[in-house]
């Protein structure tokens, strides 16, 4: 797998969302986009101009929006629901559970501007619990793409998937991480960098930072594997098991609460499979106000912060080896 770890141009994945919706609409008459007064923030202005009948704006009404999408799916449509992740997932949680997941409706829910994209607007607008509460719902695919290419592929896969899916669509600028030829598949991890001392498992905006950390660690003689885990559910447990078996230390990194997200999913797989020392990097508790990049610094979600966490886990791994060796 080829990758770029240097900071190139940054991309807003909502642009990919918009272009993907237009491209799919051109060939798939089943596609309908449903939004809640979020035409502008979801970058759907061009879609609305080109496909006015296939953009259903229900107003500021997340619960009805999700139910309406379920009804559209009953009529054979493939609705894509778009709204700010903080509102659509929290306000509409019961609709996502019952109308989509329990019913097995072919609906893709897009959580726009997730994580701390709305950093300065405060914790009411931060969406750092969405993956945790959606991950607990049966029959719901949960995807956190890392860059524009993966976002586009994940959206197409979610629309084609028989059943509901949630896709986080990042607003925070991210570099293009994947090389040409990357092929996203639901439930499949991607080993972006090989390594043998420890494994960084990351997704979303944190994948590029994990790659930077791995590069920095290499300078200290630490061989860090980097695994991209875009699908949090269903989790690629084989790749997690390989990381535990082959590197003996796992550090997860996500733009999310440390409780119940990617780290929680990986930890469940690790403790019930092959327990190894772990760290879960993310946000703890309600955050202060500040820009997204400032909040990443604040929470240690930087190449330096991630590298330091890897060193700490390596220390525990080493201590464990000494304790358990004959």
């Amino acid at each position, binding site marked *: 797998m080829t990758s770029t770890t240097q900071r190139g141009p940054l991309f807003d994945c909502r642009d990919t969302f918009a272009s993907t919706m237009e491209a799919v609409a051109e060939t798939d008459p089943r596609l309908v986009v449903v939004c809640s007064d979020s035409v502008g923030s979801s970058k759907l202005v061009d879609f609305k101009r080109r496909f006015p009948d296939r953009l259903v704006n229900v107003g500021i009404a997340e619960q009805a929006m999700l*139910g309406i999408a*379920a009804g559209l799916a*009953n009529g054979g449509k493939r609705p894509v629901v778009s709204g700010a992740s903080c509102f659509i997932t929290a306000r509409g949680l019961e609709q996502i559970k019952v109308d989509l997941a*329990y019913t097995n409706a072919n609906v893709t829910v897009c959580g726009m501007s997730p994580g701390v994209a709305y950093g300065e607007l405060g914790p009411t607008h931060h969406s750092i619990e969405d993956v945790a509460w959606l991950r607990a719902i049966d029959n719901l695919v949960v995807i956190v793409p890392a860059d524009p290419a993966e976002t586009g592929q994940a959206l197409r896969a979610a629309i084609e998937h028989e059943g509901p899916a949630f896709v986080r669509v990042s607003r925070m600028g991210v570099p293009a991480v994947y090389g040409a030829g990357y092929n996203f598949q639901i439930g499949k991890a991607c080993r972006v960098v090989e390594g043998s001392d420890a494994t960084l498992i990351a997704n979303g905006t944190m994948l590029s930072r994990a790659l930077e950390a791995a590069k920095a660690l290499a300078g200290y003689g630490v061989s860090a594997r980097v695994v991209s885990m875009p699908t949090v559910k269903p989790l690629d447990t084989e790749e997690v098991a390989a990381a535990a078996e082959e590197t003996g230390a796992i550090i997860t990194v996500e733009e999310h609460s440390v409780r119940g997200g990617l780290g929680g999913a990986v930890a469940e797989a690790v403790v019930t499979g092959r327990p190894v020392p772990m760290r879960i990097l993310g946000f703890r508790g309600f955050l202060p106000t500040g820009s997204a990049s400032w909040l990443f610094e604040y929470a240690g979600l930087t190449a330096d912060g991630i590298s330091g966490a890897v060193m700490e886990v390596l220390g525990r791994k080493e201590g464990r080896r000494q304790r358990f060796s004959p």
Partner: protein
Amino acid sequence: MTLATSQGLPAGRIERSLAHEERVRLLVDASRRIRRRELEMVRTAGLGHIGGDFSATDIVVVLLLAVLNIDPLHPHFPDRDRFVMSKGHSSAALYATLATCGFFAASLLDEYMKPLSPLSGHPDAKKVPGVEASSGPLGHGLPIAVGMAVAAELDGSKRRTFCLVGDGELQEGSNWEALMAAGHRGLERLAVIVDRNGLQQGASTEETSRLNPLAAKARAFGWGVAEVAGHDHAALLSAFEGLPVDAGKPSFVIARTHKGYPVSFMQDRVEWHHKVPSAGELEAALNELL
């Protein structure tokens, strides 16, 4: 055995070609027989919501047996009319009527709420043919029905969407989001029927959180409003066949009903929301439905 003393489920759906009076006569008898079956289901399960089942039965029977364009042999044909039972706790009424239509064998009703039964306390669209939307949590059905009506519009289809809601259920805010959206879009082929029995689980709706003036509220949201006697089969049939109430608007049909109707000791009694009849009460109720 004459019709008046028949006690099993009715024969099936009612032909549209029959005379109006004959259709009404068959509907009246179907409701009586279906209510008897609901009582037995709730008594056997030891659980249920017989009060709401009885208040909704005549509406469900008229819609499913006589009004909707549905086909039990092809439950998913694309251009079928849609019926969403938002008040999912009245599942006994829905299941007994669906079995009458022929969506599944009547013997399955004996499995109501038993372990592994497809007939859960609240309807599961994946498991029960004829159930269009899984329901149970209140305030879900109407938004789904709005989506169904939008899908029909996008298809240029004449299919209709009906949604039955409880009146207490209208306290859920999601309904008002959906009422606003449907009124705004002028979804003429969508109708919501309110089972207006006036009671919710613990008390009357007006004592709990006032719904009235309900008709004025629906009109203000852009709906055409009609009121109908909810246990009068002829009136229900005429109301449903005369839709839309107002051209260019969705229809809001307030069906005036009674919880527990027509059993004397159940009717309008709040405790019969989810009380299970004793053996003696079952016999007494069945005797009122001969």
